[in-house]
Structures are given as structure tokens and as C-alpha cells.
């Protein structure tokens, strides 16, 4: 994946903190002129895409089954909030724990193979758990779990209030985003990048690369779960769409459009794709075709994605 990496051109770079402040500033003023539910949905998918990007961008592992963690966390959050009356923080935690557990199981098997096989294995496990979700009684089959209560966060904050919900989603997103940023800039993250560049050499240096890959996979799955669980609370629904294979493809597309291996790319990619789906909703089936065209165009013409091209143009890191 070497052609993805934006070269580390300067030792101290202020571009990322500045871009972060711009992003926070945007999120602070955006509800004034953009429909909040759209923003919250886009933020959930942005976190999902960042979690996916942690694997492809920094470990070089293409997971084609991330809908498994997103969707199952969404189901468990929705079910525990609705059927067991869990408060939202506990419901989301239930979803995250489920995603982490599935990530541990599927990840420990998938990392036994590399490259293209890894993608096929993750896709196959996701399909298997989709079929389980179709048949499991608690998921509500085609109807999904609807009218999920948003509840009261920590017994204090009423999430039925749109502003409270928005602030909560922004906080969750920023927490996840900063966690990922911290991870990729830690010594642990450096080892991950070493594995991406040359796994054999990382092994020869004495790193147990399988453990590093597994920890990264579980972390990515858990954060995808955090995104899925939050989405279930925000949109008050969990359905088969969240767990089916097109969702796995969508998150790949978001990261690809924004820029694989960039910090801000997946966020921009998620906003672009969700906006595209919103505006194209009236053309129905064409959404799939257009997404396919975007895939093809990205792979053939601008593999760096929006943020990757921008970073390359301005010679900065983003």
C-alpha cells in the first residue's frame, strides 16, 4: 500500500491540529444550517469509516466485512435499550462489547491469512452473521427493531432533545476519532505501520505481528460497534441493511473516496457518501449504480481520495 502513504515531510506538522480545529468548528456551527439528523447520521458513518480505515490505512488489512460489527452492535444496542430498558450509555456499551467479541473471534481466524484472502474471509464471516441475523428471532427479521427509545444519558441528559442528542453524538465521534489518532501516533501504531510496509521484516525484528494485527482488528471492530450502537440510538432503528454486505462495501467506499490512510479522509468520505445517498434518494435504484461508478473512478483515477489528493497538493499531512 506504499503509494497511499503521504510522506512524512516535516518533523513537526501543524496541519493535523489545524484541520482538527476546523472540523470541530464546523461541527459547532453546522446544526445552524444543516439538518441535525443528517449530521448525526453522517457522524456515525464517519466514525465507522475511521474505524475501518484504522485497518486498511495503518495495518494494510482490507476488511470486507465490517458491517458485521456495525450491524450487530446496532442490533444489540437497539434490543437492550428497547426490550431490557437499558439506559443509552449501557445499551451502546452492550453493542460495543458485542462487536469487540465478534471482532476477536472473526479477527483471530482472519489474520491467519494475508492480503486478498483476508478480505474474502472477513466478507464470508460477515455474510454468515447476516444469515444468522435474518433467522434470529430478536432481530425482527425484515422489520428490524423499530422505535428504539433514546432514553436519558447517565440519568441526566434527555436524548429526546435534538440538541442534547447532537452534542452527545459529536462527543462520541470526537472521542473515537481522537482515540484512533492517538493509536496511530503511538509506538503501537508505528509497529502497525511497519507491518503494513513489510510484515516479514517486522517479524524478523522480533515483533509478534499476529498479536498486533489482532489488537488492531478488535479495536477497529469495537469502534465500528460504537458507531453502529450510536446510530441505533440516533435513528431509533436497527435493521438488516446495517448488517448486510452492501454496508461493508459502503464503508470501504467512504474511506476510499476520502482517502485511505489519511486521518481526515474517512470523515470527509462519509459525509460525501451520506450526502450523495440523501440527494439521490429519489432516483432509487440508481444509487447502487452511481456508487459503483464512484468505486471505479476512485480506483482508476484518484486512488489517494479527496483528502489524500489535497494533502499531496499542499504537501502537508492530513
Amino acid at each position, binding site marked *: 500500500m506504499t503509494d497511499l502513504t503521504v510522506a512524512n515531510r516535516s518533523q513537526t506538522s501543524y496541519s493535523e491540529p489545524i484541520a482538527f480545529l476546523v472540523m470541530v468548528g464546523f461541527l459547532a456551527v453546522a446544526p445552524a444550517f444543516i439538518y441535525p439528523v443528517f449530521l448525526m447520521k453522517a457522524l456515525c458513518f464517519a466514525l465507522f469509516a475511521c474505524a475501518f480505515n484504522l485497518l486498511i490505512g495503518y495495518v494494510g488489512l482490507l476488511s470486507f466485512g465490517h458491517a458485521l460489527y456495525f450491524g450487530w452492535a446496532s442490533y444489540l444496542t437497539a434490543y437492550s435499550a428497547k426490550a431490557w430498558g437499558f439506559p443509552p450509555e449501557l445499551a451502546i456499551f452492550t453493542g460495543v462489547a458485542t462487536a469487540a467479541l465478534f471482532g476477536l473471534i472473526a479477527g483471530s481466524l482472519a489474520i491467519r*491469512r494475508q492480503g486478498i484472502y483476508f478480505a474474502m474471509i472477513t466478507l*464470508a464471516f460477515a455474510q454468515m452473521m447476516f444469515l444468522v441475523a435474518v*433467522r434470529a428471532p430478536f432481530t425482527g427479521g425484515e422489520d428490524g427493531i423499530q422505535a428504539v427509545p433514546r432514553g436519558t444519558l447517565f440519568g441526566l441528559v434527555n436524548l429526546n432533545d435534538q440538541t442534547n442528542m447532537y452534542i452527545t453524538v459529536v462527543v462520541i465521534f470526537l472521542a473515537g476519532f481522537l482515540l484512533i489518532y492517538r493509536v496511530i501516533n503511538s509506538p503501537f501504531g508505528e509497529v502497525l505501520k511497519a507491518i503494513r510496509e513489510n510484515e516479514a521484516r517486522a517479524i524478523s525484528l522480533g515483533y509478534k505481528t499476529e498479536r498486533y494485527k489482532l489488537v488492531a482488528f478488535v479495536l477497529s471492530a469495537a469502534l465500528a460497534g460504537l458507531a453502529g450502537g450510536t446510530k441505533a440510538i440516533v435513528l431509533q432503528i436497527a435493521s438488516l441493511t446495517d448488517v448486510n454486505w452492501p454496508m461493508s462495501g459502503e464503508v470501504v467506499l467512504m474511506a476510499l473516496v476520502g482517502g485511505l490512510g489519511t486521518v481526515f479522509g474517512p470523515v470527509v468520505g462519509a459525509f460525501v457518501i451520506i450526502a450523495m445517498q440523501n440527494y439521490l434518494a429519489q432516483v432509487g435504484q440508481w444509487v*447502487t449504480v452511481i456508487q459503483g461508478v464512484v468505486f471505479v473512478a476512485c480506483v482508476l483515477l484518484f486512488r489517494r481520495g479527496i483528502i489524500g489528493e489535497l494533502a499531496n497538493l499542499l504537501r502537508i499531512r492530513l
Partner: protein
Amino acid sequence: MALFSQLLIGLINGSFYALLSLGLAVIFGMLNIINFTHGAQYMMGAFVAYLLLQHIGLNYWMALIFAPIIVGAIGIAMERLFLQWLYKLDHLYGLLLTFGFALIIEGLFRNQFGSSGLPYQMPEQLTGGQNLGFMFLPNYRAWVIVFSLVICLGTWFIIERTKLGSYLRAATENPALVSAFGINVPRMITLTYGFGVALAALAGVMAAPIYNVSPQMGAELIIVVFAVVVIGGMGSIMGAIVTGFGLGVIEGLTKVFLPEWSNTVIFIIMAIVLLIRPAGLFGRRA
């Protein structure tokens, strides 16, 4: 009785698994690309057969010849126009590009033909069946199993036992050296892709009378075939054939004994194989 009829259905599914994973393995060998469009190309094979019958009146037997040629030609155009630019890049880009094409093709067909299945008449020569005493064997199903076995073994023979196949295998190992001997490797790659795609389309034509012809018929099948490929490993042609038929039969048996596990059994076998033999049953350790 149920046992034998499920075994038969298992062999039918196994025929399609074998044909499709064989095509994937042949393409991966030469192009180093996992062809995600394979399921869409299988679907196109079925649709071309349907359209030939509806609009030109060409019957099933003609479709068996023309659908693979037409869809294979589209595949060749795709390779020349798009895929060939990716060979020097990471394998993952090939997967992403072909995934994009799968979305485009399936989306276009769904716009044109809707999501519900269209019926395709069985050829009249193959209606009816044989009473074998212990079970009733429909002629068409027997034909599908025998014919796909012939195609699979024929492909194996071409690749493993002929001069052309030896060029192919050599080019898989070391394309630079083979082109130094004056063999046009890029053309070989193009034709290999066309051939792999044609195999998928052929499977689609054979599937048309059994399942309905529908735009999404390939999408879920291809994910199962990926699992088949992970189980078998793509290093061996015979391995792909044996794994394909074998898993079809196991899936059929599961329908009899553990029906609630039947649609996940292949994925569970994949997990077990990854635990015991990570390189796959016939795979070479990467």
C-alpha cells in the same frame, strides 16, 4: 428419499461452486486479481440466455454456446479498458474495482428487469426424469452435473496437460521470462480473463432453468464461492473442482440432518479449515 434428493441438490450447487471457483482460480493465477464481478457475470450469463430466447428465439443449446462468448467478450473489453491498469498495484485495488463493476452491473439489471425472478424454460429434450428405484432423477439436473464435470475436467486438462496450459502455468510463475521467449503475455492475460468470465456465464446459463433469472442471483452466491476458495486455496485447479463439489454435497447433507445450519455450514467449515490448515486444503503456504 430425502437424503438422495438433497444429495442431488448438493451436487447441483456443488457444480456451480466448482465452475465459479475454478474461474476465480484461473483468473487469480494470471491476473493476481480476485474477480468480484464474477457473480454479476454469472448473472449476466443467465440473462443473456433469457434475452436470446425472448428476442431472437435462440434456444438453450445455442445459449450454452453464445452466452459465454458474449459475456466473455464483455469481460475482455473490461480487462482491456480498466483492469490492465491495475496489475502493478496492490491486489486490493483489483478487488475494489471489480466490486464497483459488480455494483454497476447488478444495479443496471435491477433497474431494467426489477428484482423478481424471470422464469426460463427447461430445454424440452431434458424435461422429465428417470426413476432409479431409490429416487427420481430429473434429466435436467443429471445433465447439469455431468456437463459441469466435463467442463471442469476439460479445463483441468487444458491447463495441466496441454502445451497452451504449460505456457499459462509458466506465465503465472514468471511472466517476464515467458515474454522473453516471445510469447505475448498481455494477450494471454486478456484471454484468460475472458475464459474465466465465460465459465461464470456458462454456469449462469445452466442455472437459469433451475433457479429463476434475477439480477441478484450472483451476489450472494459469490460470497459463498469466496468461502469455497478460502477453504480450497487457489493454488490448484483440481483442488477447486474437488472442493466445490465436496462442499455442495456437505451442504446438501446438512439440509437433511441439521437443516437450521445448512446455509451457514460452508462458513463454519471455512473457520475450521482456517484453524487447522490456514493455507487451505490444497493451498501452498503463502
